């Protein structure tokens, strides 16, 4: 009897474990969003190195602050350029679907969109916000494969909402941590337009954080942008941080 109880308990335990780990087309996107998004405020500093064919690379340092939708009812982010001095004070503010760029020289805000690039890089305003694969895309195919030595789910996605930059996306998602290590973005006609690589992650307060991200322009050869994240914190941020007044004040 005891033998059977142990066996059944083992089978049940194994079943529970398998159930917890079973990734399917129906749940992979929500699981990725869970991994990438925080329920708390987020702040960090990042260095952005932009390479343009025929030109010297440019380096900028920015401070990034973000707040998920769950806290205030709408997603918010604020990014401020700290270096170089010529761009210092330039800011990007996002509140829900509204985006603004602040120019410290003219002291004016101009309306932007999720699709506009940040500081002429290969990264868009939208890339600074939270991931939302589950709401924006559906899985059309899912296979197993490898990215280097990493076992991955290779997932093909098709857009289901209008506010997306790319109609089709291919993700390489690590099986172990369910982190997207590589993303390929395709045009409506199926042309590869951009590749995003996130080879390095850190575990901070139980959350996985990007440490390095590469945006590679597949259309214009030689163009790419590298992001290096540092000083990451998940501590609460003051409410006034995500306002135009703060951005204007911090730029003086």
């Amino acid at each position: 009897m005891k033998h059977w109880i142990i066996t059944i308990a083992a089978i049940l335990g194994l079943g529970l474990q398998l159930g917890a780990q079973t990734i399917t087309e129906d749940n992979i996107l929500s699981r990725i969003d869970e991994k990438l998004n925080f329920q708390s405020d987020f702040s960090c500093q990042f260095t952005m190195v932009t390479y343009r064919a025929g030109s010297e690379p440019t380096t900028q340092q920015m401070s990034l602050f973000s707040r998920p939708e769950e806290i205030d009812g709408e997603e918010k982010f604020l990014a401020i350029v700290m270096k170089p001095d010529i761009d210092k004070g330039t800011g990007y503010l996002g509140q829900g679907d509204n985006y603004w760029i602040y120019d410290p020289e003219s002291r004016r805000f101009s309306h932007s969109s999720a699709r506009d690039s940040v500081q002429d890089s290969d990264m868009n305003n939208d890339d600074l916000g939270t991931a939302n694969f589950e709401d924006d895309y559906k899985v059309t195919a899912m296979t197993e494969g490898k990215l280097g030595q990493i076992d991955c789910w290779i997932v093909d996605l098709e857009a289901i909402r209008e506010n997306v930059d790319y109609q089709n996306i291919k993700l390489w998602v690590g099986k172990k941590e369910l982190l997207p290590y590589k993303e390929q973005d395709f045009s409506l006609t199926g042309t590869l337009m951009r590749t995003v690589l996130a080879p390095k992650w850190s575990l901070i307060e139980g959350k996985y954080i990007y440490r390095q991200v590469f945006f590679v322009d597949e259309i214009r050869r030689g163009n790419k942008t590298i992001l290096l994240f540092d000083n990451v914190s998940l501590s609460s941020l003051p409410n006034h941080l995500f306002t135009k007044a703060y951005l204007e004040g911090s730029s003086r």
Partner: protein
Amino acid sequence: MRYLHVAVKNVVREKRRSLLLAGAIAFGLAVIILVGSLADGIMDSFINQQAGMISGHVVVKGYRYSSRDSLVSWMEEGDPIFQESKEFFGDSGRINLRSTTMGTFINGSEARQQMIMGIDPMQEDDLKELLILDEGTFLSDENKSGILISGEIAEELGLKIGDSVMLKTRTLEGVNNVGDLVIQGIIADDLGTVSSMASFVHRSYLNEVLGISSNDYTELHIFLEDNKTTDAVTSDFWNYLKNKNTALVDRPENRQERQEILARLTTHDWEGIRYQLSSLEETFPFVYVIGIFLNGTSVLIMIILMGIILVGISNTLRMMIFERKKEIGTMRALGMQRGAVVKSFILEMQIIALIGVIMGALTALVLGVIIESINFDLGHTFLSLFLYRGHFTMSFLPFRFALSGVVILFLVWLASLLPSGKAAKVDPAKAIHSIS
């Protein structure tokens, strides 16, 4: 007839003075005609180039919310606006269906942003005539992925005929997309800045890249025979559509109101399609401001020159009368009436003025031809917008010649009145006494 004989005799008698005076009148008239013709020619040239290349004289856009709820300008093949436009304009306007977008041409690591215009090559004979190609051929239905690109951009991107170039743009829904095009023709830079304002592709191909059906379009371009009344015609067309209960975007009174009206479109509290009508004046207001400035300048020059002519004639006549005082006295003593004195002087000045007008008109024509023949080659500067293939265009209108000539003759008559009147009042006895 008698006065004419005397007047002609006096003109011939003082050839030098007559020629100088006629020459001054000719100069003034030539300048007036040239400045006015140049102003009109520049405006005509610019307006027709802009209309032909970019916008037509009247642009119709159809705003609607797409299936994914974004506001776009997009008209489908069956939309009634095309038929309504044909009914209104009839033979007085030509209607072309076009699709437009902003995109980036990419060749390797080189890139250049530009407006892309999707056209139906078989319907665009006027554009074909306007675009001078350095190399290659105009678009055709046989090769729908062909593109006409300006020489400046081809050089910048290192492209030649037959090369492929990638076009990066967004669909009407805003999704990133690319197209692969083949260089079919390279537009000559003769049109200056206008040459590189847009590249041209087949509408059906561009529609594919924009994610819409091949026969759909984003703009209706209407070309009028008379480009001077675009605003009035646009308003009339708007009223015509309004009376047919067509859903329209309000016509703005000014530029700011235009922005406000467009902003109200994004409230998404309406359905279906709403048409926006814009005249070339609204699309390129600065052109018409420059036109007003040019015409104003030519009017000012005309007023100044005519004032100078007026004063010149008057002074010259006074001098002549002073010199001929004894002659006038003698003629009066012999029985010539005052009226006859006035008539003879006026006639004399009118003959000189007529000679001047003819000389001036001929001079204006010759100088105009010379000016038109000069290639100013302003490259891709702002000023090149007002040239046609590097040349100024003169708009020699018969009425301008006629009107200027008539005004000059009238002014000369006016300037002659007072001095002639004074001459007629000369006392014959005193005049003869001065001979003695």
